[in-house]
């Protein structure tokens, strides 16, 4: 049974190889090959899951050793997989949502002539992401980490003929490199500190604690902060968040799969997987919670002002991952809830993005919400599935977001002390803003009067429901958005499931769970109410009003690009210019000066070579005379 783990990765990898190397003759069937192999991976995952459920919680860690990758002296890096409850959760999410989005893409990409390549990239992404979560050491994880970065780059820039898409892909890649550097430094630090980077000995296995806690706290904090940097890059957390909004240039299924449900959560996986390191470095944990809290508000504020439906959802993704990172920074009281929110978020956010894609599909690829309005009559299925995703994300009682987000807010309060109050307050405020911006998206898109206009060529959009290949995945995800949270929470199923891997402890909250829930509900109603008053009661102008100072800042992503431009780009330019100046004057001066003086000297010296044997004889006699004189002089002394 354990030998099936490699097949999980092999199926989509085979798909990617066949689709990308197969050439034009596969154009007609490419989408089927990609979808079938993704589904095959999901079936294998389901078989493994059933097998895992049949075992007692202590022996649920499956391992498979494929081969020794690098062996030098005592050092060994293996290609091996570790499938435990944490990886299993991810594998099911990745292959499940991945398969659904493959099905959706069949409809969405129907008219794209490069469809085969698109499915090849999607399969490549699945393979890399599965490698990331299944690797049993950090080096192999790094391979998957880079693989998803590559797939993300290729898919954001899939419509490479649009300069904006090409630029967005480049930006995502470059920003991610900063994070990747953090991960590689963390791996190097681990190797110098512990001599290994395998999960087993480092982080501990069932019943054995690893050696990760043995090092000094300073070193562990350094490793943890580097891991956090990596997580920030991949998960679009402050300060490496600027790429996610632009990444929406990619096709919508990509935004749903990679930039909402799976890849961007890799950072959360990394932190939770490295729990042993973070638990022993409280300072780093504090930084993690701060990053999560700041991003939570940052993303939410940006999401409030965007008129582009996908960018509004991207801000929301950033904010929700902020929740997860915040929870992961809380330590054992938060790990399980971070992953639980990650899974429920995977359902409802993928559903919301697919809904947005469906709307765009029916509206001639229009993304400006100010030109939607009243679409509920034209797209009933999209409306209902999007609506359920909306209720789930704002935390409507009984839906999945309600359970997972509430737990995070409680855990934040349970952190204790001033920190707990601040983090809890931020999380509560985030819930209110979430309700506001999601209600805004909902009302602007599906309610009110219709505001669409003919496009530049005079085509009036004819909003229509999408084909069933697109609506069925949306319906399935809507089911997940509604029921996943309740299913996980009843009887603390999810906690018991993950506890053996991540550990779990109940926090001692200064406020009761009921108070938190009540406060969340009040804030939810307030947030949604304000949005209703602003956008539901009065008509939405087609051109955006100038807006307040905060709105204008949020429209420009709170000036993150301007900040990057001024500090990093300009700073970098000045640095390189001064370095070039130093290079030209100092370094080149020394080198050229040496060369010039040697050249000048030899130019003079060569005049001695006049070809007359007698003048050579003079220098010989002169030299001999000097030698003799010197010898005599030395002897005299």
């Amino acid at each position: 049974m354990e030998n099936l783990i490699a097949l999980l990765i092999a199926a989509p990898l085979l798909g990617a190889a066949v689709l990308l190397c197969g050439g034009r003759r596969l154009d007609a069937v490419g989408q089927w090959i990609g979808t079938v192999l993704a589904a095959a991976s999901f079936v294998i995952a389901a078989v493994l899951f059933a097998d895992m459920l049949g075992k007692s919680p202590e022996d649920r860690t499956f391992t498979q050793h494929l081969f020794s990758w690098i062996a030098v002296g005592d050092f060994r890096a293996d290609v091996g997989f570790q499938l435990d409850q944490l990886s299993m959760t991810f594998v099911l999410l990745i292959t499940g949502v991945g398969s659904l989005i493959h099905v959706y893409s069949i409809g969405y990409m129907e008219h794209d002539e490069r469809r085969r390549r698109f499915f090849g990239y999607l399969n490549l992404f699945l393979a890399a992401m599965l490698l990331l979560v299944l690797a049993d050491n950090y080096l192999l994880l790094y391979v998957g980490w880079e693989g998803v970065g590559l797939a993300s780059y290729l898919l954001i820039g899939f419509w490479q003929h649009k300069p904006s898409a090409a630029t967005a892909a480049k930006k995502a890649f470059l920003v991610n490199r900063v994070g990747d550097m953090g991960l590689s430094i963390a791996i190097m630090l681990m190797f110098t500190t512990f001599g290994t980077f395998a999960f087993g000995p480092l982080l501990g296995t069932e019943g054995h604690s690893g050696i990760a806690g043995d090092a000094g706290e300073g070193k562990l904090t350094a490793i943890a902060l580097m891991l956090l940097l990596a997580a920030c890059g991949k998960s679009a957390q402050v300060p490496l968040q600027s790429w996610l909004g632009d990444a929406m240039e990619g096709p919508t299924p990509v935004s749903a799969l990679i930039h909402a449900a799976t890849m961007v959560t890799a950072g959360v996986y990394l932190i939770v997987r490295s729990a042993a390191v973070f638990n022993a470095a409280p300072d780093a944990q504090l930084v993690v919670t701060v990053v999560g809290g700041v991003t939570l508000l940052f993303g939410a504020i940006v999401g409030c002002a965007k008129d582009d439906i996908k960018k509004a959802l991207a801000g929301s993704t950033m904010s929700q991952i902020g929740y997860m990172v915040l929870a992961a920074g809380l330590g054992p009281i938060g790990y399980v809830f971070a992953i639980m929110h990650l899974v429920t978020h995977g359902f409802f956010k993928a559903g919301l993005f697919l809904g947005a894609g469906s709307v765009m599909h029916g509206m001639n690829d229009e993304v400006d919400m100010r030109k939607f309005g009243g679409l509920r009559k034209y797209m009933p299925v999209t409306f209902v599935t999007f609506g359920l995703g909306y209720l789930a994300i704002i935390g409507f009682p009984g839906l999945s977001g309600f359970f997972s987000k509430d737990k995070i807010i409680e855990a934040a309060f349970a952190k204790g002390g001033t920190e707990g109050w601040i983090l809890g307050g931020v999380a509560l405020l985030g819930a209110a803003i979430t309700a506001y911006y999601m209600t805004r998206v909902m009302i602007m898109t599906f309610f009110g009067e219709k505001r669409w206009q003919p496009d530049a060529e005079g085509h009036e959009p004819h909003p229509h429901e999408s084909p069933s290949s697109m609506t069925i995945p949306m319906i399935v995800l809507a089911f997940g958005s509604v029921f996943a949270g309740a299913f996980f929470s009843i009887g603390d199923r999810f906690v018991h499931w993950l506890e053996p891997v991540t550990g779990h402890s109940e926090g001692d909250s200064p406020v009761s769970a009921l108070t938190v829930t009540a406060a969340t509900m009040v804030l939810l109603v307030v947030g949604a109410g304000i949005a209703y008053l602003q956008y539901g009661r009065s008509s939405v102008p087609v051109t955006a009003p100038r807006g307040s100072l905060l709105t204008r800042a949020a429209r420009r992503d709170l000036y993150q690009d301007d900040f990057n431009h001024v500090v990093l780009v300009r700073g970098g330019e000045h640095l390189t210019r001064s370095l070039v100046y130093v290079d030209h004057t100092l370094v080149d001066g020394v080198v050229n000066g040496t060369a010039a003086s040697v050249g000048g000297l030899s130019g003079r010296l060569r005049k001695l070579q006049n070809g007359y044997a007698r003048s050579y004889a003079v220098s010989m006699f002169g030299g001999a005379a000097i030698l003799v004189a010197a010898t005599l002089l030395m002897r005299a002394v």
Partner: protein
Amino acid sequence: MNPVNYLYLSALLFTIGATGVLIRRNAIVVFMCIELMLNACNLAFVVFSRMHGNLDGQIIAFFTMVVAAAEVVVGLAIIVSLFRSRHSASVDDASLMKL
């Protein structure tokens, strides 16, 4: 007779030879002057041998003669071929070896 006088003679011969090498242009004469310098050295070696009462100097004098004989063969061959190609035995005419 005081052997030092032979050293004076040797120095005188060497100086004449050196001066000849430096100021004469005819390759044959330059060559003869070199031989003169070699033989001045030989004389000095022999004198030193006599003064110190051992045979080292005489042995070196023989070596010098052998080397000088070989040198004469090569040197004259060069001079003859130089003369054949340029119809001149002036050392200043053969000044092509320069930059």
